[in-house]
């Protein structure tokens, strides 16, 4: 019988890549989706089959991290061997506008899920999607699993709570519960309001003559950017270990938004300086410092390493958005991916 995995946040960038990976490994995959009046499963279209088909191994269930009873019921019914908690209000700038909601889902949601697991008495392995934003005002460079946290946004405070409560349930109840501390990871499926995707979409539109200006915030912000498809492999590897543990997943390189602009625009034969303008509304009230992750532990224990580095990542995102736009203009529809 195939293994069963439950993914929260399955409709997001990471969730969709992880679902594909697990299906390719023969898992039965269950995902929790929120009810919304518009469909939000676009990233799953490629793998979603008719649930009535006998061959279907992907199942979506309505639920929400704000709904403890629903979580408990779903876990009891599905009886998963692995739970990947990827759901969150994941946008840092938005977390300053909507901090209570961010905390309810990103922090309290995790303890609801852990409590639901504890209560059902089944013992799935648990993966918590932690974030490099927890390092915030960094205490050392590069950051490792032992670097203390200094969160600088409501999102980061919520993720730090989630990290510790995961460690706490591991230590208090012997759960196989692990944190992957993922540094920024991008892809053609990245949300359109994140700076990388915002840039690559703008490049496609500017190249097609449909847009002229791109408004951005802090161009000097530096991040460690990897490729999401490779990062979900690390999530799976973390749950295959005999012992639960916490791992930094990163590229150990750091690049500025400005460098991202240079590579993205020049890849499309454009000069970014002709198109980019600054809008201070996109600045964060408090910026994080130099984020760069040392993934030695993941390499040593999981045998994981990033393959796609910065320049190739930017290029593949630009290529994808250019292709998607030309498909859209040619009437082949399906924006986004």
């Amino acid at each position, binding site marked *: 019988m195939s293994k069963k995995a439950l993914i929260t946040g399955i409709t997001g960038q990471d969730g969709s890549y992880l679902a594909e990976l697990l299906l390719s490994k023969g898992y039965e995959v269950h995902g929790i989706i929120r009810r919304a009046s518009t469909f939000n499963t676009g990233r799953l279209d490629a793998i979603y089959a008719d649930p009535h088909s006998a061959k279907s191994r992907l199942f979506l269930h309505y639920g929400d991290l704000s709904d*403890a009873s629903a979580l408990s019921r779903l876990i009891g019914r599905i009886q998963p061997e692995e739970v990947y908690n990827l759901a969150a209000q994941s946008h840092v700038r938005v977390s*300053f506008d909507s*901090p*209570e909601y961010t*905390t*309810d889902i990103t*922090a*309290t949601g995790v*303890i*609801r899920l852990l*409590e639901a697991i504890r209560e059902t008495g089944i013992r799935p392995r648990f993966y918590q999607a932690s974030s490099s934003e927890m390092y915030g005002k960094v*205490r050392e460079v590069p950051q490792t699993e032992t670097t*203390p*946290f200094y*969160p*600088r*946004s*409501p999102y*980061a*405070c*919520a993720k*730090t*709570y989630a990290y*510790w*409560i995961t*460690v*706490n349930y591991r*230590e*208090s*109840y012997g759960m196989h519960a692990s944190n992957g501390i993922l540094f920024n990871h991008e892809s053609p499926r990245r949300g359109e309001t994140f700076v990388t995707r915002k840039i690559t979409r703008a490049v496609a539109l500017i190249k097609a003559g449909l847009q002229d200006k791109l408004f951005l915030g802090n161009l000097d912000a530096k991040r460690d950017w990897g490729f999401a498809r490779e990062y979900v492999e690390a999530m799976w590897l973390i749950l295959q270990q005999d012992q639960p543990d916490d791992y930094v997943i990163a590229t150990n390189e750091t690049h500025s938004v400005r460098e991202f602009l240079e590579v993205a625009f020049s890849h499309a034969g454009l000069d970014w300086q002709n198109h980019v303008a600054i809008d201070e509304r996109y600045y*964060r*009230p*408090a910026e994080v410092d130099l984020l760069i992750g040392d993934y030695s532990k993941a390499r040593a224990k999981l045998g994981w390493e990033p393959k796609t580095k910065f320049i190739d990542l930017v290029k593949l995102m630009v290529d994808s958005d250019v292709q998607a736009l030309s498909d859209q203009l040619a009437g082949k529809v399906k924006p986004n991916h």
Partner: protein
Amino acid sequence: MPRALITGITGQDGSYLCELLLSRDIEVHGLVRRTSSLDRSRLNHLFSDPAIYGRRLFLHYADLDDPTTLRRVLLKVAPDQIYHLAGQSHVGLSFEIPESTCEMTAMGTLRLLEIIRDLPKPVRLFHASSSEIFGQPAICPQDENTPCAPVNPYGCAKAFATQMVGVYRKAFGLFACNGIMFNHESPRRGENFVTRKICHAAAAIKRGLQKELPLGDTSARRDWGHARDYVRGMMLALEHDQPGDYIFATGQLHSVQDVVERAFATVGLDWREYVRLDPRFMRVAEPSNLAGNAARAKQILGWEPVISFDEMIIEMTRAELAALA
């Protein structure tokens, strides 16, 4: 007359702070939750004084999970200072009710910050943080730069609230302070906290009302101060011209065993005849090595604890004896 608002006013710290602020001619408003038993024993002496209640002390119904009411009360009272002391504050219980601990202690603090951020008149905020945010620290004593690494649901929630106070101070320029309070006790400590439990048992055994005292691990050591000293630190933090984070601690470690011996000696009994080890009171993940370095509070605020450990346990035990007389 300056106006202060206290969340958690019915608790140990809230009641001492209320007395202190009233003695400094500050008008005090407190938030209270509706319950079917009207138990405000720590405030009864103030509540029943017509010169105080309704003139300089006012209580309002509200709850940390009810943002609309919080906003309404804050707009109506328009305080100059807010002392945020409310929370599900029992570590052992936080393993029993982790979600509501998170809801009150973590989310409740955030809701308050959100409302304060939008208030028309700037207000100073004191947040009662806890040494539990440090978990089982490698370095002893701890100071304001010691990393957070909580080991229980209570500590996780307090760490969140503490960090969020820092974020709002930096991002929105709020005058918001964290007091990282190490354990502090008094005759008004909740009955299910270990010091109070021991002092109560020693007195009850002395009065012939109880036969024995079941306890968890008595070698556990803590940095224990007196709540009356600690609420003075809270007030000093908000009187300073700059907001900041401060450790409030004695720096001295004493064991549960020390409490037992001092309490039983106060009533003139030999503890060995009455104390029994009971595994039900063992914590799942027991913190240790928690001792605070309050040098910053001393240097910047001129704060120092003045009540010693022995004086405190004697006061607590005598209060229990008097209550059972």
